[in-house]
């Protein structure tokens, strides 16, 4: 008969402990963390701001500090509308006063280093902040020089407009002063990058702008290293319906990688572009460079060899530095795209995981959402949406993103534009207010 002695008992205990993470216990973080435990959040974008707010909502005893480089945040989302003058820069600009009302400390300074052993964050301003847990949401930085001729200096005359603010205005000015019959060349980035449908939305809205501003002979050429892109079927359908796509008069031309769309070199003075099989000349050139995690992630030893931050996708704790969590554009989050909604949703998962960890508890089972709208023309919008889950076996975020039906009625396409605008109102309030 099987008798329990200390030895096989221990064996069982070990086996039990091994399966324990998946044993059905309600790991609800009921108790609060010890008062005054410190969380430092690096970056006050949708990822960082949301994390700070939801940490405070979950446990008001926490001492939460957001360190953000800019006085004000300028949203990239809906900035393509600002490029064509259909939205003000003001409406994209968000201050941090409302965030402070949650009892969050907001410091305007640039983080220069994170010490995961000493658990401190150092800033350019010469300050050091101690933390129990650190959440990093620095967004992206560009791989300058990946396209020969395009570096940070060149971006002063050739906008990327992939970080909103002066860059958005620069592109806007150039578009406005371009004469009818001119050519805009958009150099699209390789995967993965911030806002996968963004370059194609931009092309659509530029076509819409030219069409409605008496510049109907103007063209937009997208040079792409990829052969596919987000919501491609819906974009092509929209371009066909509105901008003559597929005809010789098409306002938009998309050159995929297979047809030589990859750009090797640009001449920032002559505005010439050397793609793989052909050279192009632009009147307005918009280069969206290849991307990597925001540079603080590299400085803090949080990135893999591709420049992105690998994390435990259930909690977003870095797999490289214990006690440091990375969310938003900078992290590798399974099949979730790099979007503001994704950053906002990941922030809530990580906030719950940090609260649990500080109270000595296991993290709960996460659930994530993303919805990304694209506006392709007047009263013409569509979206991709998904609920994501953590797959315990694959140890990855999984989910099936679905796009708007290709036979969606005009009423529905129009509604999607208004949902895009209302989403914007809500994501801003949910993240920063």
């Amino acid at each position, binding site marked *: 008969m*099987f*008798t*329990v002695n200390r030895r096989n*008992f221990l064996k*069982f*205990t070990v*086996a*039990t402990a*091994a*399966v*324990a993470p*998946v*044993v*059905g*216990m*309600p*790991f*609800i*973080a*009921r108790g609060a963390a010890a008062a005054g435990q410190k969380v430092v959040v690096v970056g006050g974008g949708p990822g960082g701001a949301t994390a700070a707010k939801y940490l405070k909502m979950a446990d008001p005893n926490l001492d939460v500090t957001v360190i953000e480089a800019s006085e004000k945040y300028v949203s990239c989302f809906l900035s393509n509308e600002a490029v064509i003058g259909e939205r003000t820069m003001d409406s994209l600009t968000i201050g941090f006063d409302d965030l402070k009302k949650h009892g969050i400390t907001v410091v305007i300074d640039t983080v220069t280093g994170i010490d995961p052993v000493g658990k401190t964050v150092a800033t350019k301003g010469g300050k050091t902040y101690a933390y129990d847990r650190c959440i990093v949401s620095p967004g992206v930085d560009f791989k300058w020089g990946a396209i020969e001729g395009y570096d940070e200096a060149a971006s002063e005359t050739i906008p990327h407009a992939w970080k909103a603010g002066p860059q958005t205005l620069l592109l806007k000015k150039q578009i406005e002063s371009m004469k009818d019959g001119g050519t805009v060349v958009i150099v699209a980035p390789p995967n993965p990058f911030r806002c996968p449908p963004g370059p194609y939305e931009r092309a659509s809205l530029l076509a819409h702008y030219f069409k409605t501003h008496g510049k109907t002979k103007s063209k937009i050429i997208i040079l792409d290293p990829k052969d596919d892109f987000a919501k491609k079927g819906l974009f092509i359908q929209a371009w066909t319906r509105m901008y003559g796509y597929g005809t010789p008069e098409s306002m938009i031309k998309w050159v995929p990688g297979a047809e030589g769309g990859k750009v090797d070199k640009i001449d920032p003075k002559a505005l010439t572009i050397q793609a793989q099989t052909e050279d192009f000349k632009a009147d307005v050139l918009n280069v969206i460079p290849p991307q990597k995690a925001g540079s603080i992630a590299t400085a803090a030893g949080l990135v893999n060899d591709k420049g992105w931050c690998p994390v435990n996708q259930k909690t977003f704790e870095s797999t490289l530095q214990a006690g440091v969590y990375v969310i938003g554009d900078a992290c590798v989050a399974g099949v979730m795209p790099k979007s503001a909604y994704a950053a*906002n*949703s990941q922030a*809530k*998962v990580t906030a*719950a995981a940090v609260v649990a960890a500080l*109270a000595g*508890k*296991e993290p*709960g*089972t*996460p*659930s994530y*959402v993303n*919805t990304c709208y694209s506006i392709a023309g007047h009263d013409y919008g569509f*979206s991709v*949406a*998904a*609920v994501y*889950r*953590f797959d*315990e076996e694959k140890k990855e975020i999984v*989910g*099936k993103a*679905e796009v708007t039906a290709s036979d*969606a009625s005009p009423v*529905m396409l129009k*509604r*999607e534009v*208004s*949902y895009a*605008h*209302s*989403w*914007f*109102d*809500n*994501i801003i*309030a*949910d993240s920063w*207010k």
Partner: protein
Amino acid sequence: MLRTLLGRALARVISACREKGVFAIVQTVRERFCESFPNDRWGMVVFLLTQDRGKTMRNKIGFLVLLGGLVVAGNSFAADPTTPEMLANACAGCHGTNGVSVGPSIPTLAGIDADYFTSAMQGYKKGEWASTVMVRLAKPYSDDEITAMGAFFAKQKFVPANQKTDPAKAKLGETLHNQQCEKCHENGGSSGEGAGILAGQWMLYLHATLDDYASGTRPTDKKMKSKVDAVVNEHKDTGIEALVHFYGSKK
């Protein structure tokens, strides 16, 4: 203190195991221990280590059942159920923090009737209700999750939308409401069993919804349909406009 707690927990497991069949055991072990150690799996380990093992037949059986249950549980339960907060917070990107929307075309969910929430989500999930994104977002949630989210949003405080209304339209709307709607959407549309909150809801959303009822792209019961049709037949879009302004004007 701890010993008493542990002892009590064990006694409950054993008695429950006796009462229920073998298949209920795993569940029982989970439930009982979750009650006793709600927060911490280490509580379980502590329990195992401090157990007075094998002294009595009763304890021995209990111990084996417990271990067996744990091992089986490890295989048969993929993960803990996601908390209602976790599920509902993910909606807030579009529907606002705690379901209070500040975007005029997206409805506030805070304070919603839980049954209405469920019927809406099921309607979207099955593709029976006209929608753009909701059909895609409702599908992945289980029935239990939908119920949990409904209960969460029902508990949140409704905040009326801050929006401009036309007093003349609102006045006609009030008349129409009293004629057609008040019976089910009581108190000027602020309550009603199994119904959404209309009073103080976003007007753009209400308008789209009423359009969908009128066109039949959002199915409803015969009574509701006949009421909407009555408004539309007599007043066309002006009637819908009026109702929307009436509800929108309520604070």
